[in-house]
Protein backbone atom coordinates (compact mmCIF):
# COMPACT_ATOMS: atom_id res chain seq x y z
CA UNK A 1 0.00 0.00 0.00
CA UNK A 2 1.30 3.41 -0.94
CA UNK A 3 1.43 5.53 2.19
CA UNK A 4 0.90 9.29 1.88
CA UNK A 5 2.95 11.92 3.64
CA UNK A 6 -0.01 12.29 6.03
CA UNK A 7 0.43 8.64 7.04
CA UNK A 8 4.12 9.28 7.64
CA UNK A 9 3.59 12.42 9.69
CA UNK A 10 0.93 10.64 11.71
CA UNK A 11 3.28 7.72 12.34
CA UNK A 12 6.00 10.12 13.43
CA UNK A 13 3.65 11.93 15.79
CA UNK A 14 2.48 8.63 17.33
CA UNK A 15 6.05 7.39 17.64
CA UNK A 16 7.14 10.55 19.44
CA UNK A 17 4.14 10.30 21.74
CA UNK A 18 5.15 6.77 22.71
CA UNK A 19 8.78 7.77 23.27
CA UNK A 20 8.00 10.85 25.33
CA UNK A 21 4.68 10.24 27.07
CA UNK A 22 4.67 6.47 27.63
CA UNK A 23 8.13 4.87 27.57
CA UNK A 24 9.67 6.99 30.36
CA UNK A 25 6.91 5.81 32.74
CA UNK A 26 6.80 2.15 31.79
CA UNK A 27 9.09 0.91 34.60
CA UNK A 28 6.93 2.57 37.23
CA UNK A 29 3.61 1.48 35.73
CA UNK A 30 4.82 -2.11 35.40
CA UNK A 31 5.90 -2.10 39.04
CA UNK A 32 2.60 -0.63 40.16
CA UNK A 33 0.66 -3.11 38.00
CA UNK A 34 -1.43 -0.28 36.55
CA UNK A 35 -1.10 2.65 34.16
CA UNK A 36 -3.17 5.84 34.39
CA UNK A 37 -5.62 5.07 31.57
CA UNK A 38 -7.76 8.16 32.00
CA UNK A 39 -4.85 10.60 31.98
CA UNK A 40 -3.12 8.93 29.04
CA UNK A 41 -6.29 8.48 27.00
CA UNK A 42 -7.15 12.18 27.35
CA UNK A 43 -3.79 13.05 25.81
CA UNK A 44 -4.29 10.53 23.01
CA UNK A 45 -7.82 11.81 22.47
CA UNK A 46 -6.60 15.40 22.16
CA UNK A 47 -4.28 14.29 19.33
CA UNK A 48 -7.14 12.51 17.57
CA UNK A 49 -5.51 9.11 18.00
CA UNK A 50 -8.53 7.43 19.63
CA UNK A 51 -10.91 8.29 16.81
CA UNK A 52 -8.96 7.79 13.61
CA UNK A 53 -11.69 5.81 11.85
CA UNK A 54 -14.63 6.91 13.98
CA UNK A 55 -17.37 9.15 12.51
CA UNK A 56 -16.94 12.91 12.66
CA UNK A 57 -20.29 13.30 14.49
CA UNK A 58 -18.70 11.76 17.61
CA UNK A 59 -15.43 13.68 17.29
CA UNK A 60 -13.58 11.17 15.14
CA UNK A 61 -11.68 11.80 11.92
CA UNK A 62 -13.65 9.41 9.72
CA UNK A 63 -10.49 8.24 7.93
CA UNK A 64 -9.94 4.84 6.36
CA UNK A 65 -8.37 1.99 8.32
CA UNK A 66 -4.87 2.48 6.87
CA UNK A 67 -4.44 5.59 9.05
CA UNK A 68 -5.36 3.65 12.17
CA UNK A 69 -3.00 0.89 11.03
CA UNK A 70 0.09 3.13 11.04
CA UNK A 71 -0.83 4.33 14.54
CA UNK A 72 -1.19 0.73 15.77
CA UNK A 73 2.25 -0.16 14.42
CA UNK A 74 3.83 2.77 16.21
CA UNK A 75 2.04 2.03 19.48
CA UNK A 76 3.44 -1.49 19.28
CA UNK A 77 6.97 -0.11 19.64
CA UNK A 78 6.18 0.89 23.22
CA UNK A 79 8.47 -0.62 25.85
CA UNK A 80 5.44 -2.26 27.43
CA UNK A 81 2.91 -4.34 25.51
CA UNK A 82 0.29 -3.53 28.13
CA UNK A 83 -0.22 0.09 27.17
CA UNK A 84 -0.82 -0.43 23.43
CA UNK A 85 -3.13 -3.34 24.24
CA UNK A 86 -5.21 -1.11 26.51
CA UNK A 87 -5.39 1.53 23.78
CA UNK A 88 -6.36 -1.14 21.27
CA UNK A 89 -9.22 -2.23 23.52
CA UNK A 90 -10.50 1.34 23.45
CA UNK A 91 -10.16 1.88 19.71
CA UNK A 92 -10.51 -1.51 18.05
CA UNK A 93 -12.16 -3.95 20.41
CA UNK A 94 -14.85 -2.17 22.46
CA UNK A 95 -16.00 0.46 19.98
CA UNK A 96 -16.15 -0.67 16.29
CA UNK A 97 -19.63 -2.24 16.56
CA UNK A 98 -20.91 0.79 18.47
CA UNK A 99 -19.60 3.07 15.72
CA UNK A 100 -21.22 0.90 13.03
CA UNK A 101 -24.58 0.02 14.54
CA UNK A 102 -25.18 2.25 17.58
CA UNK A 103 -28.04 4.76 17.66
CA UNK A 104 -27.17 8.46 17.80
CA UNK A 105 -28.03 8.56 21.49
CA UNK A 106 -25.89 5.62 22.49
CA UNK A 107 -22.99 6.84 20.33
CA UNK A 108 -23.11 10.30 21.91
CA UNK A 109 -23.29 8.81 25.38
CA UNK A 110 -20.56 6.15 25.09
CA UNK A 111 -18.60 6.53 21.85
CA UNK A 112 -17.96 10.29 21.87
CA UNK A 113 -16.28 10.20 25.32
CA UNK A 114 -14.28 7.12 24.26
CA UNK A 115 -13.00 9.07 21.24
CA UNK A 116 -12.10 12.14 23.31
CA UNK A 117 -10.52 9.97 26.01
CA UNK A 118 -12.90 11.21 28.70
CA UNK A 119 -14.10 7.65 29.26
CA UNK A 120 -12.24 4.35 29.36
CA UNK A 121 -13.95 1.44 27.62
CA UNK A 122 -13.60 -2.32 27.87
CA UNK A 123 -15.00 -5.28 25.99
CA UNK A 124 -16.94 -7.98 27.81
CA UNK A 125 -17.16 -11.21 25.86
CA UNK A 126 -15.18 -13.91 27.74
CA UNK A 127 -16.57 -15.45 30.91
CA UNK A 128 -15.16 -17.88 33.48
CA UNK A 129 -16.68 -20.77 31.48
CA UNK A 130 -16.55 -19.44 27.91
CA UNK A 131 -13.77 -17.74 26.00
CA UNK A 132 -12.86 -19.03 22.57
CA UNK A 133 -16.31 -20.63 22.39
CA UNK A 134 -18.08 -17.28 22.29
CA UNK A 135 -21.57 -18.65 21.68
CA UNK A 136 -21.39 -20.50 25.00
CA UNK A 137 -21.49 -17.34 27.15
CA UNK A 138 -24.15 -17.30 29.85
CA UNK A 139 -24.48 -13.72 31.09
CA UNK A 140 -28.16 -12.87 30.65
CA UNK A 141 -29.91 -9.59 29.97
CA UNK A 142 -33.60 -10.05 30.77
CA UNK A 143 -36.12 -7.46 29.67
CA UNK A 144 -38.11 -5.70 32.36
CA UNK A 145 -40.20 -2.87 30.92
CA UNK A 146 -37.78 -0.44 29.27
CA UNK A 147 -34.75 -1.96 30.98
CA UNK A 148 -32.50 -4.96 30.68
CA UNK A 149 -31.64 -6.63 33.97
CA UNK A 150 -28.18 -8.14 33.59
CA UNK A 151 -26.69 -10.96 35.66
CA UNK A 152 -23.49 -12.91 35.14
CA UNK A 153 -19.74 -12.38 35.12
CA UNK A 154 -17.10 -11.34 32.63
CA UNK A 155 -13.50 -12.55 32.79
CA UNK A 156 -10.09 -11.40 31.42
CA UNK A 157 -11.39 -7.88 31.07
CA UNK A 158 -8.54 -5.61 29.95
CA UNK A 159 -8.97 -2.07 31.40
CA UNK A 160 -11.51 -3.78 33.71
CA UNK A 161 -10.59 -2.02 36.94
CA UNK A 162 -10.42 1.42 35.32
CA UNK A 163 -13.16 1.31 32.70
CA UNK A 164 -16.25 3.52 32.76
CA UNK A 165 -18.32 1.30 30.52
CA UNK A 166 -18.30 -2.11 28.90
CA UNK A 167 -19.38 -3.22 25.47
CA UNK A 168 -21.01 -6.41 26.74
CA UNK A 169 -22.17 -9.47 24.87
CA UNK A 170 -25.11 -10.99 26.74
CA UNK A 171 -27.87 -13.49 26.06
CA UNK A 172 -31.11 -11.61 25.45
CA UNK A 173 -33.32 -14.56 24.52
CA UNK A 174 -34.13 -16.91 21.68
CA UNK A 175 -33.14 -20.43 20.70
CA UNK A 176 -30.40 -20.17 18.10
CA UNK A 177 -27.04 -19.66 19.80
CA UNK A 178 -25.94 -17.22 17.09
CA UNK A 179 -29.20 -15.25 17.20
CA UNK A 180 -29.92 -15.01 20.92
CA UNK A 181 -27.30 -12.47 22.00
CA UNK A 182 -27.02 -8.68 21.95
CA UNK A 183 -24.27 -6.14 22.44
CA UNK A 184 -25.15 -3.66 25.19
CA UNK A 185 -23.29 -0.62 26.54
CA UNK A 186 -23.16 -1.24 30.27
CA UNK A 187 -21.92 1.53 32.59
CA UNK A 188 -19.43 0.29 35.17
CA UNK A 189 -19.30 3.56 37.07
CA UNK A 190 -21.74 6.30 37.97
CA UNK A 191 -20.92 9.86 37.01
CA UNK A 192 -19.34 10.45 40.43
CA UNK A 193 -16.92 7.60 39.73
CA UNK A 194 -18.47 5.09 42.16
CA UNK A 195 -19.43 1.62 40.95
CA UNK A 196 -22.66 1.40 38.99
CA UNK A 197 -25.32 -0.39 41.07
CA UNK A 198 -24.95 -4.16 40.83
CA UNK A 199 -21.45 -4.08 39.28
CA UNK A 200 -18.58 -5.43 41.36
CA UNK A 201 -14.92 -6.10 40.81
CA UNK A 202 -14.42 -9.70 41.89
CA UNK A 203 -10.69 -9.83 41.36
CA UNK A 204 -7.74 -8.26 39.64
CA UNK A 205 -5.86 -10.99 37.79
CA UNK A 206 -2.06 -11.35 38.02
CA UNK A 207 -0.38 -12.39 34.76
CA UNK A 208 3.06 -13.44 33.49
CA UNK A 209 3.26 -10.30 31.36
CA UNK A 210 1.37 -7.15 30.36
CA UNK A 211 1.91 -6.10 33.95
CA UNK A 212 0.86 -2.48 33.68
CA UNK A 213 -2.43 -3.42 32.05
CA UNK A 214 -5.19 -4.20 34.54
CA UNK A 215 -7.14 -7.39 33.93
CA UNK A 216 -10.33 -8.00 35.88
CA UNK A 217 -13.08 -10.44 36.69
CA UNK A 218 -16.28 -8.39 36.95
CA UNK A 219 -19.60 -9.53 38.35
CA UNK A 220 -23.04 -8.24 37.42
CA UNK A 221 -25.88 -8.73 39.86
CA UNK A 222 -29.21 -7.53 38.47
CA UNK A 223 -27.64 -4.52 36.79
CA UNK A 224 -30.33 -2.31 35.23
CA UNK A 225 -29.60 -0.73 31.87
CA UNK A 226 -32.09 1.00 29.54
CA UNK A 227 -32.93 -1.15 26.53
CA UNK A 228 -32.04 1.79 24.27
CA UNK A 229 -28.36 1.40 25.28
CA UNK A 230 -28.25 -1.78 23.22
CA UNK A 231 -26.11 -1.59 20.09
CA UNK A 232 -28.19 -2.18 16.95
CA UNK A 233 -30.77 -4.95 16.79
CA UNK A 234 -31.62 -7.42 19.52
CA UNK A 235 -30.32 -10.89 18.73
CA UNK A 236 -27.63 -9.60 16.35
CA UNK A 237 -24.91 -9.22 19.01
CA UNK A 238 -23.02 -12.37 18.10
CA UNK A 239 -22.84 -11.35 14.44
CA UNK A 240 -21.78 -7.79 15.35
CA UNK A 241 -19.12 -9.18 17.66
CA UNK A 242 -17.76 -11.49 14.95
CA UNK A 243 -17.40 -8.45 12.68
CA UNK A 244 -15.83 -6.46 15.48
CA UNK A 245 -13.21 -9.18 15.91
CA UNK A 246 -11.66 -8.19 12.55
CA UNK A 247 -10.40 -4.90 13.96
CA UNK A 248 -9.20 -6.70 17.08
CA UNK A 249 -7.19 -9.20 15.05
CA UNK A 250 -5.65 -6.62 12.79
CA UNK A 251 -4.80 -4.48 15.78
CA UNK A 252 -3.00 -7.44 17.35
CA UNK A 253 -1.03 -8.11 14.17
CA UNK A 254 -0.15 -4.46 13.53
CA UNK A 255 0.97 -3.65 17.05
CA UNK A 256 2.98 -6.88 17.08
CA UNK A 257 4.76 -5.74 13.90
CA UNK A 258 5.82 -2.55 15.69
CA UNK A 259 6.98 -4.54 18.71
CA UNK A 260 8.99 -6.95 16.55
CA UNK A 261 10.64 -4.21 14.49
CA UNK A 262 11.63 -2.60 17.74
CA UNK A 263 12.85 -5.88 19.25
CA UNK A 264 15.10 -6.42 16.23
CA UNK A 265 16.42 -2.85 16.33
CA UNK A 266 17.17 -3.07 20.06
CA UNK A 267 18.85 -6.44 19.61
CA UNK A 268 20.96 -5.21 16.69
CA UNK A 269 22.15 -2.27 18.78
CA UNK A 270 23.04 -4.65 21.58
CA UNK A 271 24.93 -7.22 19.53
CA UNK A 272 26.91 -4.52 17.75
CA UNK A 273 28.09 -3.12 21.08
CA UNK A 274 28.46 -6.31 23.11
CA UNK A 275 31.75 -8.08 22.51
CA UNK A 276 32.58 -11.74 22.85
CA UNK A 277 35.94 -13.43 22.12
CA UNK A 278 37.32 -10.05 21.08
CA UNK A 279 34.66 -9.13 18.50
CA UNK A 280 31.06 -7.87 18.48
CA UNK A 281 28.47 -10.62 19.06
CA UNK A 282 27.01 -9.63 15.68
CA UNK A 283 30.16 -10.85 13.90
CA UNK A 284 29.19 -14.46 14.52
CA UNK A 285 27.56 -15.84 11.41
CA UNK A 286 24.94 -17.66 13.46
CA UNK A 287 23.83 -14.27 14.78
CA UNK A 288 23.74 -12.16 11.63
CA UNK A 289 22.24 -14.96 9.53
CA UNK A 290 19.52 -15.52 12.13
CA UNK A 291 18.75 -11.80 12.22
CA UNK A 292 18.45 -11.85 8.43
CA UNK A 293 16.00 -14.76 8.65
CA UNK A 294 13.93 -12.93 11.24
CA UNK A 295 13.81 -9.78 9.11
CA UNK A 296 12.67 -11.90 6.18
CA UNK A 297 9.87 -13.47 8.19
CA UNK A 298 8.82 -10.11 9.57
CA UNK A 299 8.66 -8.66 6.05
CA UNK A 300 6.36 -11.55 5.12
CA UNK A 301 4.13 -10.88 8.12
CA UNK A 302 3.99 -7.21 7.25
CA UNK A 303 2.96 -7.93 3.67
CA UNK A 304 0.21 -10.30 4.82
CA UNK A 305 -1.09 -7.89 7.46
CA UNK A 306 -1.15 -4.92 5.12
CA UNK A 307 -3.03 -7.02 2.60
CA UNK A 308 -5.61 -7.40 5.36
CA UNK A 309 -5.57 -3.63 5.93
CA UNK A 310 -6.13 -3.03 2.21
CA UNK A 311 -8.98 -5.51 2.27
CA UNK A 312 -10.66 -3.55 5.10
CA UNK A 313 -10.08 -0.26 3.28
CA UNK A 314 -11.67 -1.77 0.14
CA UNK A 315 -14.73 -2.71 2.20
CA UNK A 316 -14.22 -6.45 1.73
CA UNK A 317 -14.68 -9.17 4.33
CA UNK A 318 -11.20 -9.23 5.83
CA UNK A 319 -11.89 -12.21 8.08
CA UNK A 320 -9.52 -14.74 6.45
CA UNK A 321 -6.63 -12.29 6.05
CA UNK A 322 -7.10 -10.74 9.49
CA UNK A 323 -7.19 -14.19 11.07
CA UNK A 324 -4.09 -15.32 9.17
CA UNK A 325 -2.28 -12.12 10.15
CA UNK A 326 -3.24 -12.54 13.81
CA UNK A 327 -2.11 -16.17 13.85
CA UNK A 328 1.08 -15.45 11.99
CA UNK A 329 2.00 -12.42 14.13
CA UNK A 330 1.45 -14.25 17.41
CA UNK A 331 3.60 -17.17 16.30
CA UNK A 332 6.36 -15.03 14.85
CA UNK A 333 6.41 -12.97 18.05
CA UNK A 334 7.18 -16.12 20.02
CA UNK A 335 10.04 -17.26 17.81
CA UNK A 336 11.48 -13.87 16.91
CA UNK A 337 11.63 -12.49 20.43
CA UNK A 338 12.96 -15.79 21.77
CA UNK A 339 15.76 -15.72 19.16
CA UNK A 340 16.58 -12.11 20.00
CA UNK A 341 16.59 -12.78 23.74
CA UNK A 342 19.14 -15.54 23.20
CA UNK A 343 21.68 -13.07 21.83
CA UNK A 344 21.27 -10.82 24.85
CA UNK A 345 22.69 -13.64 26.99
CA UNK A 346 22.28 -13.11 30.73
CA UNK A 347 20.93 -9.62 30.13
CA UNK A 348 18.09 -11.15 28.14
CA UNK A 349 17.04 -13.22 31.13
CA UNK A 350 17.19 -10.28 33.53
CA UNK A 351 14.01 -8.35 34.18
CA UNK A 352 15.68 -5.02 33.48
CA UNK A 353 16.17 -5.59 29.75
CA UNK A 354 13.54 -4.45 27.27
CA UNK A 355 13.71 -7.77 25.46
CA UNK A 356 12.68 -9.79 28.51
CA UNK A 357 9.54 -7.71 28.93
CA UNK A 358 8.71 -8.11 25.25
CA UNK A 359 9.22 -11.88 25.72
CA UNK A 360 6.70 -12.01 28.57
CA UNK A 361 4.20 -9.59 27.05
CA UNK A 362 4.09 -11.08 23.57
CA UNK A 363 3.22 -14.58 24.77
CA UNK A 364 -0.33 -13.34 25.30
CA UNK A 365 -1.09 -12.97 21.62
CA UNK A 366 -1.29 -16.69 20.93
CA UNK A 367 -4.08 -16.77 23.54
CA UNK A 368 -5.77 -13.38 23.82
CA UNK A 369 -7.97 -11.87 21.12
CA UNK A 370 -8.79 -15.36 19.83
CA UNK A 371 -6.29 -18.17 20.44
CA UNK A 372 -4.10 -19.53 17.63
CA UNK A 373 -6.38 -22.58 17.50
CA UNK A 374 -9.45 -20.37 17.03
CA UNK A 375 -7.70 -18.59 14.15
CA UNK A 376 -6.90 -21.97 12.60
CA UNK A 377 -10.55 -23.02 12.88
CA UNK A 378 -11.69 -19.81 11.19
CA UNK A 379 -9.14 -20.16 8.41
CA UNK A 380 -10.24 -23.78 7.89
CA UNK A 381 -13.85 -22.68 7.59
CA UNK A 382 -12.97 -20.12 4.94
CA UNK A 383 -10.94 -22.71 3.05
CA UNK A 384 -13.79 -25.20 3.38
CA UNK A 385 -11.48 -27.60 5.18
CA UNK A 386 -13.59 -27.99 8.31
CA UNK A 387 -14.98 -31.52 8.65
CA UNK A 388 -18.76 -31.54 9.30
CA UNK A 389 -19.96 -31.53 12.89
CA UNK A 390 -16.86 -30.00 14.46
CA UNK A 391 -17.29 -26.41 13.39
CA UNK A 392 -16.24 -23.74 15.82
CA UNK A 393 -18.63 -20.93 16.50
CA UNK A 394 -16.33 -18.12 15.52
CA UNK A 395 -16.34 -17.38 11.87
Amino acid sequence: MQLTSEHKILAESARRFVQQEIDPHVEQWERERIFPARELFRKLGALGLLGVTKPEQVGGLGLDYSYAAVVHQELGRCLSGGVPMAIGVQTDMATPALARFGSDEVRQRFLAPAVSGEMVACIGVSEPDAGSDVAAIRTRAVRDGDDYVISGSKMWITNGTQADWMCMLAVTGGDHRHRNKSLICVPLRDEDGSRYPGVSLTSKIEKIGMHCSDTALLSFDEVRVPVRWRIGEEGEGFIYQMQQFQEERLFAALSTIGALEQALAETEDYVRERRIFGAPVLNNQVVHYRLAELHTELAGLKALTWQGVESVVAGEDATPLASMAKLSSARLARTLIDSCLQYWGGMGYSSESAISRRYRDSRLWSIGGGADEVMLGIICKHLDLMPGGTEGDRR
Partner: protein
Amino acid sequence: MKVLVAVKRVVDYNVKVRAKSDQSGVDLANVKMAMNPFCEIAVEEAVRLKEAGKVEEIVAVSVGPDAAQEQLRTALALGADRAILVRHEGESEPLGVAKVLHKLVEREQADMVLLGKQAIDDDNNQTGQMLAALMNRPQGTFISELNIDGEQVSITREVDGGLQKIRFQLPAVITVDLRLNEPRYASLPNIMKARQKPLDAVDPAELGVDLEPRLAVLKVTDPPVRQAGIVVETVADLVDKLRNEAKVI
Protein backbone atom coordinates in the same frame (compact mmCIF):
# COMPACT_ATOMS: atom_id res chain seq x y z
CA MET B 1 4.13 40.35 11.20
CA LYS B 2 5.44 37.66 8.92
CA VAL B 3 7.87 35.01 10.16
CA LEU B 4 10.09 32.73 8.11
CA VAL B 5 11.00 29.46 9.81
CA ALA B 6 13.80 27.26 8.51
CA VAL B 7 13.25 23.51 8.60
CA LYS B 8 15.94 20.93 7.85
CA ARG B 9 15.50 17.25 7.03
CA VAL B 10 18.13 15.32 8.99
CA VAL B 11 18.79 11.81 10.29
CA ASP B 12 16.38 11.06 13.15
CA TYR B 13 17.97 11.81 16.51
CA ASN B 14 17.37 8.23 17.67
CA VAL B 15 19.47 6.72 14.89
CA LYS B 16 23.03 5.69 15.67
CA VAL B 17 24.78 6.76 12.51
CA ARG B 18 27.76 4.94 11.04
CA ALA B 19 30.43 6.10 8.66
CA LYS B 20 30.41 4.55 5.18
CA SER B 21 33.12 1.98 4.66
CA ASP B 22 34.75 4.15 1.95
CA GLN B 23 34.89 7.05 4.48
CA SER B 24 33.06 9.36 2.08
CA GLY B 25 30.35 10.27 4.55
CA VAL B 26 27.64 8.96 6.85
CA ASP B 27 25.67 5.94 5.66
CA LEU B 28 22.16 7.20 4.92
CA ALA B 29 20.77 4.11 3.17
CA ASN B 30 17.44 3.11 4.78
CA VAL B 31 18.04 5.49 7.66
CA LYS B 32 15.04 7.15 9.24
CA MET B 33 14.89 10.89 8.58
CA ALA B 34 13.04 13.54 10.56
CA MET B 35 12.84 17.26 11.20
CA ASN B 36 15.89 18.65 12.98
CA PRO B 37 14.84 18.91 16.66
CA PHE B 38 16.02 22.54 16.92
CA CYS B 39 13.90 23.40 13.88
CA GLU B 40 10.89 21.88 15.66
CA ILE B 41 11.48 24.29 18.52
CA ALA B 42 11.66 27.18 16.05
CA VAL B 43 8.37 26.12 14.44
CA GLU B 44 6.75 25.74 17.85
CA GLU B 45 7.85 29.24 18.87
CA ALA B 46 6.46 30.73 15.68
CA VAL B 47 3.15 28.96 16.25
CA ARG B 48 2.97 30.21 19.83
CA LEU B 49 3.62 33.77 18.64
CA LYS B 50 0.80 33.38 16.16
CA GLU B 51 -1.52 31.98 18.82
CA ALA B 52 -0.62 34.99 21.00
CA GLY B 53 -1.67 37.30 18.16
CA LYS B 54 1.82 38.67 17.53
CA VAL B 55 2.38 37.00 14.18
CA GLU B 56 0.03 36.92 11.20
CA GLU B 57 1.75 34.50 8.87
CA ILE B 58 4.28 31.70 9.25
CA VAL B 59 6.19 30.52 6.19
CA ALA B 60 8.23 27.33 6.60
CA VAL B 61 11.25 26.96 4.30
CA SER B 62 13.46 23.97 3.63
CA VAL B 63 16.49 23.53 1.40
CA GLY B 64 16.65 19.87 0.49
CA PRO B 65 15.48 16.97 -1.69
CA ASP B 66 11.84 16.39 -2.68
CA ALA B 67 11.51 14.12 0.34
CA ALA B 68 11.93 17.20 2.55
CA GLN B 69 8.32 17.99 1.68
CA GLU B 70 7.49 15.59 4.49
CA GLN B 71 9.20 17.83 7.03
CA LEU B 72 7.49 20.89 5.53
CA ARG B 73 4.12 19.11 5.74
CA THR B 74 4.93 18.41 9.37
CA ALA B 75 5.61 22.12 9.93
CA LEU B 76 2.25 22.87 8.29
CA ALA B 77 0.57 20.32 10.55
CA LEU B 78 2.18 22.00 13.55
CA GLY B 79 0.72 25.37 12.52
CA ALA B 80 2.75 27.00 9.74
CA ASP B 81 0.55 28.66 7.10
CA ARG B 82 2.47 27.78 3.96
CA ALA B 83 5.73 26.24 2.92
CA ILE B 84 8.49 26.68 0.36
CA LEU B 85 10.82 23.90 -0.70
CA VAL B 86 14.08 25.01 -2.33
CA ARG B 87 15.04 21.89 -4.25
CA HIS B 88 18.57 20.71 -3.71
CA GLU B 89 20.07 17.21 -3.78
CA GLY B 90 23.19 16.42 -1.79
CA GLU B 91 25.00 18.35 0.91
CA SER B 92 23.90 21.84 1.76
CA GLU B 93 26.36 24.18 3.41
CA PRO B 94 25.48 26.99 5.82
CA LEU B 95 26.49 29.84 3.50
CA GLY B 96 24.40 28.50 0.61
CA VAL B 97 21.35 28.05 2.83
CA ALA B 98 21.86 31.52 4.34
CA LYS B 99 21.92 33.00 0.83
CA VAL B 100 18.70 31.18 -0.08
CA LEU B 101 17.01 32.40 3.09
CA HIS B 102 18.25 35.94 2.44
CA LYS B 103 16.61 35.93 -1.00
CA LEU B 104 13.38 34.57 0.44
CA VAL B 105 13.33 37.13 3.26
CA GLU B 106 13.53 39.85 0.60
CA ARG B 107 10.93 38.23 -1.60
CA GLU B 108 8.52 37.57 1.26
CA GLN B 109 9.23 40.82 3.11
CA ALA B 110 9.56 38.78 6.30
CA ASP B 111 10.02 40.63 9.59
CA MET B 112 11.71 37.83 11.46
CA VAL B 113 13.55 34.59 10.69
CA LEU B 114 13.44 31.80 13.26
CA LEU B 115 15.99 28.99 12.96
CA GLY B 116 17.34 26.18 15.07
CA LYS B 117 20.72 27.10 16.55
CA GLN B 118 22.18 24.21 14.57
CA ALA B 119 21.19 21.05 12.71
CA ILE B 120 22.08 17.76 14.37
CA ASP B 121 23.63 16.29 11.22
CA ASP B 122 26.62 18.59 10.66
CA ASP B 123 26.35 20.65 13.87
CA ASN B 124 27.66 23.70 12.03
CA ASN B 125 25.82 26.38 13.99
CA GLN B 126 26.45 29.00 11.31
CA THR B 127 23.39 29.51 9.11
CA GLY B 128 21.55 31.99 11.34
CA GLN B 129 24.65 34.08 11.96
CA MET B 130 25.56 34.18 8.26
CA LEU B 131 22.01 35.11 7.35
CA ALA B 132 22.04 38.03 9.82
CA ALA B 133 25.29 39.23 8.26
CA LEU B 134 23.88 38.98 4.73
CA MET B 135 20.74 40.86 5.82
CA ASN B 136 22.83 43.32 7.82
CA ARG B 137 20.31 43.01 10.62
CA PRO B 138 20.52 42.08 14.35
CA GLN B 139 20.84 38.49 15.47
CA GLY B 140 19.77 36.82 18.70
CA THR B 141 21.33 33.38 18.94
CA PHE B 142 20.85 30.38 21.29
CA ILE B 143 17.77 31.90 22.83
CA SER B 144 15.85 30.41 25.75
CA GLU B 145 13.29 33.20 26.03
CA LEU B 146 11.64 35.51 23.52
CA ASN B 147 9.42 38.54 24.05
CA ILE B 148 8.14 40.73 21.28
CA ASP B 149 6.62 44.17 21.82
CA GLY B 150 5.88 45.87 18.54
CA GLU B 151 9.20 46.28 16.70
CA GLN B 152 11.16 45.60 19.86
CA VAL B 153 12.51 42.11 20.59
CA SER B 154 13.87 41.07 24.01
CA ILE B 155 15.63 37.76 24.25
CA THR B 156 17.53 35.70 26.77
CA ARG B 157 20.43 33.81 25.28
CA GLU B 158 22.37 30.94 26.75
CA VAL B 159 26.06 31.77 26.85
CA ASP B 160 29.03 30.20 28.60
CA GLY B 161 28.70 30.91 32.29
CA GLY B 162 25.15 32.21 32.33
CA LEU B 163 22.32 33.97 30.61
CA GLN B 164 22.55 37.16 28.60
CA LYS B 165 19.59 39.42 27.96
CA ILE B 166 19.58 41.67 24.92
CA ARG B 167 17.13 43.87 23.03
CA PHE B 168 17.05 44.74 19.36
CA GLN B 169 14.74 45.92 16.59
CA LEU B 170 13.02 43.91 13.88
CA PRO B 171 13.68 42.73 11.21
CA ALA B 172 16.04 40.25 12.83
CA VAL B 173 17.35 36.71 12.84
CA ILE B 174 16.76 34.48 15.87
CA THR B 175 18.23 31.04 16.52
CA VAL B 176 16.66 28.88 19.20
CA ASP B 177 18.13 26.64 21.88
CA LEU B 178 16.66 23.53 23.52
CA ARG B 179 15.09 25.17 26.53
CA LEU B 180 12.95 27.71 24.68
CA ASN B 181 9.86 25.49 24.56
CA GLU B 182 8.62 21.92 24.30
CA PRO B 183 7.25 21.31 20.81
CA ARG B 184 3.74 19.89 20.53
CA TYR B 185 2.82 16.72 18.69
CA ALA B 186 1.14 17.11 15.33
CA SER B 187 -2.49 16.17 15.99
CA LEU B 188 -4.32 14.05 13.43
CA PRO B 189 -6.94 16.74 12.65
CA ASN B 190 -4.15 19.24 11.97
CA ILE B 191 -2.20 16.74 9.87
CA MET B 192 -5.26 16.33 7.64
CA LYS B 193 -5.93 20.09 7.49
CA ALA B 194 -2.31 20.67 6.45
CA ARG B 195 -3.05 18.90 3.15
CA GLN B 196 -4.93 22.01 2.04
CA LYS B 197 -2.10 24.42 2.84
CA PRO B 198 0.10 25.60 -0.05
CA LEU B 199 3.56 24.11 -0.53
CA ASP B 200 5.57 25.69 -3.35
CA ALA B 201 8.79 24.37 -4.78
CA VAL B 202 11.50 26.56 -6.33
CA ASP B 203 14.96 25.90 -7.74
CA PRO B 204 17.90 27.75 -6.20
CA ALA B 205 18.71 29.05 -9.70
CA GLU B 206 15.39 30.93 -9.71
CA LEU B 207 16.61 32.72 -6.61
CA GLY B 208 20.01 33.31 -8.19
CA VAL B 209 21.81 31.23 -5.59
CA ASP B 210 24.50 28.67 -6.30
CA LEU B 211 24.38 25.85 -3.73
CA GLU B 212 27.46 23.98 -4.97
CA PRO B 213 29.59 22.97 -1.95
CA ARG B 214 32.58 25.17 -1.15
CA LEU B 215 34.07 22.59 1.17
CA ALA B 216 35.65 19.24 0.27
CA VAL B 217 35.10 16.43 2.74
CA LEU B 218 38.35 14.49 3.00
CA LYS B 219 37.10 11.61 5.11
CA VAL B 220 34.47 10.65 7.65
CA THR B 221 35.26 8.01 10.26
CA ASP B 222 33.59 6.57 13.34
CA PRO B 223 34.86 8.03 16.62
CA PRO B 224 37.64 5.93 18.17
CA VAL B 225 36.44 3.20 20.52
CA ARG B 226 37.02 4.20 24.13
CA GLN B 227 39.31 2.06 26.24
CA ALA B 228 37.65 0.28 29.15
CA GLY B 229 38.16 1.96 32.54
CA ILE B 230 39.88 0.47 35.58
CA VAL B 231 39.07 0.48 39.28
CA VAL B 232 41.90 1.80 41.50
CA GLU B 233 42.42 0.49 45.01
CA THR B 234 43.28 3.67 46.90
CA VAL B 235 43.24 7.42 46.55
CA ALA B 236 47.04 7.29 46.44
CA ASP B 237 46.84 5.00 43.37
CA LEU B 238 44.44 7.42 41.76
CA VAL B 239 46.68 10.42 42.39
CA ASP B 240 49.67 8.44 41.13
CA LYS B 241 47.88 7.55 37.87
CA LEU B 242 46.58 11.06 37.37
CA ARG B 243 50.09 12.46 37.83
CA ASN B 244 52.26 9.89 36.10
CA GLU B 245 49.99 8.25 33.46
CA ALA B 246 47.36 10.82 32.60
CA LYS B 247 49.71 13.68 33.46
CA VAL B 248 46.80 15.96 34.34
CA ILE B 249 47.95 17.04 37.80
